[in-house]
């Protein structure tokens, strides 16, 4: 195993190839362009296919075709392009097709900016397209973690016959870090007897479909999907916890924001503020249990996001009103500074003091 210095986007692309992904369909958009560019160079070297689609709409439907044909396949994009993919993602869920979708988030709404953001949290964790569904979402906070989570995403996609999202903020895509890239990883190639490969009459005909015109049949399909989602929720939740056990104040942050928060927590500890952090690694399933548990001992929570406050809803649901949940966020591509997060920790720690009513603290 060699340590390589790689940009996040390139590391994600190489990780996918080493996880057995041989088909990539995408459309250029900043700040994820290094993924398709890297794929266009590497895929021919490994006997795979890179195809630049005419739009994100086409790209996700090419993914649908390739996934339905039994292949390990990936696409990547950013906000505006991910919005265009949503119809296709809903179809992928309905037809139960595995694939990996990378979203390197940028500022929005609209064309927004090309700077980092976490503004697509709702879109990613609430399904994003039409219909009643959820998709597993991984949120790497380092280039190294982007590699392992991308590879995990392919296995999870196959295991549950579902699209899986790797949700990075713009910084993850652009920053360079040393990474361990395993020369070959164990690829859990599962059997796909449902795939459309040509029907020789020895098995039931493959029909890749999301249409169930009879409401009772569609309800059964939905119940089956919900059971699958429940199974994912109980088995796949992942998070990191730092200094939480004795913490009065628990910061909740994901992705690169968690790194900024980590520095701020250490500085707060040096000042005598008992701060800790819970870092969701899967945004769905959300680590509600560890947060609920922390709510028994911590006095307050502070959610830090590069958005106007989206994940805070999930934190509040987990805390269930037992403790104050405060928020600090930057938007539009602005990145929170360590000293600003530290300042918020000080305020929140004040809120954690029962002598200070929450209103004053805010």
């Amino acid at each position: 195993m060699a340590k390589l210095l790689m940009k996040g986007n390139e590391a994600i692309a190489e990780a996918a190839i080493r996880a057995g992904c041989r088909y990539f369909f995408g459309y250029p958009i900043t700040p994820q362009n290094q993924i398709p560019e890297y794929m266009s160079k590497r895929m021919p070297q490994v006997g795979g296919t890179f195809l630049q689609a005419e739009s994100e709409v086409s790209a996700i439907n090419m993914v649908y075709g390739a996934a339905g044909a039994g292949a390990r396949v990936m696409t990547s994009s950013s906000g505006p392009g991910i919005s265009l993919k949503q119809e296709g993602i809903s179809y992928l869920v309905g037809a139960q097709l595995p694939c990996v979708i990378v979203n390197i988030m940028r500022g929005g709404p609209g064309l927004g900016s090309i700077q980092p953001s976490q503004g697509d949290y709702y879109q990613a964790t609430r399904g994003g397209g039409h219909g009643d569904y959820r998709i597993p979402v991984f949120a790497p906070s380092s280039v190294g973690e982007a590699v392992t989570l991308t590879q995990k995403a392919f296995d999870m996609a196959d295991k549950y016959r579902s699209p899986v999202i790797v949700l990075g903020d713009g910084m993850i895509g652009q920053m360079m870090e040393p990474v361990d890239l395993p020369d070959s990883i164990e690829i859990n190639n599962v059997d796909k007897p449902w795939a459309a490969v040509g029907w020789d009459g020895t098995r039931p005909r493959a029909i890749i479909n999301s249409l169930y015109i009879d409401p009772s049949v569609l309800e059964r399909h939905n119940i089956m999907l919900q059971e699958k989602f429940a199974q994912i929720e109980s088995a796949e939740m992942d998070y990191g916890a730092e200094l939480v056990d004795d913490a009065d104040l628990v910061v909740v942050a994901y992705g690169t924001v968690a790194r900024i928060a980590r520095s701020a927590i250490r500085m707060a500890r040096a000042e005598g503020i008992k701060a800790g952090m819970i870092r969701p690694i899967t945004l769905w399933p959300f680590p509600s249990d560890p947060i609920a548990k922390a709510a028994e001992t911590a006095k307050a929570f502070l959610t830090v996001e590069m958005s106007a406050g989206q994940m805070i809803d999930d934190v509040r649901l987990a805390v269930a009103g037992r403790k104050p949940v405060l928020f600090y966020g930057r938007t539009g591509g602005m990145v929170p500074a360590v000293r600003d997060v530290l300042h918020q920790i000080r305020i929140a720690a004040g809120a954690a003091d029962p002598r200070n009513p929450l209103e004053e603290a805010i």
Partner: protein
Amino acid sequence: MAVVFQKPKSLTDDILTYCPGCTHGIIHRLVAEAIDDLGVQAKTIGVAPVGCAVFAYNFFAVDMMQAAHGRAPAVATGIKRVHPDNVVFTYQGDGDLASIGMAEIMHAAGRGEKITTIFVNNAIYGMTGGQMAPTTLIGQVTTTSPYGRKEELCGKPIRMSELIAQMDGSAYVARASVHDPKHVLDAKKAIRKAFETQLSGAGFSMVELLSTCPTNWGMTPSESLKWVASDMIPYYPLGVYKDSAKGAA
């Protein structure tokens, strides 16, 4: 006993769900016959559209995928890139292909994607209850052109075969009709040729079939067949628009 008539092997026993007098059914049969004749049933993968033919996945006895509205050529591209030795076809209506899916069909043709598209032009949105299609004729009354299609408002109907034939990546493009037995035989030849083109690896192939929608045209089945001949064919001339084996027609 001699067999004089048989259902093609590439059609299932499911009962077609099309309205009486609708020619979607004839076109299904011709596609299945072509697959049978070429002996490619076991390696064919079809893509059903959103439109009246959405249930095509129940009718063709081959592996099938159902695509989002207009996206069948992109889905077929994904399939064909994974299984280049399989025969991949899309079956699409005029709303599906010429309106919402215009980008996908043009780029599949542009790339010379080695797939075959069966394009059913009935000048209307059948499934959603008879709204105007990009192929609706000038003056034709639909539920969203109640005063007849007006050129000032909507422009002229789009002729897809002519357009696709212009693309360098297309290798075989023909327009046929199924309104009488003679034309059914011509259509059968064209569909077979389109699949042969795919098998030869020459590029993208498409057959546009003028088709009836008695239900939404507000006509009897026999009036509908006559209307294809009297009103559709003059605007949508039949013939082979491109045959790379022969050079452009």
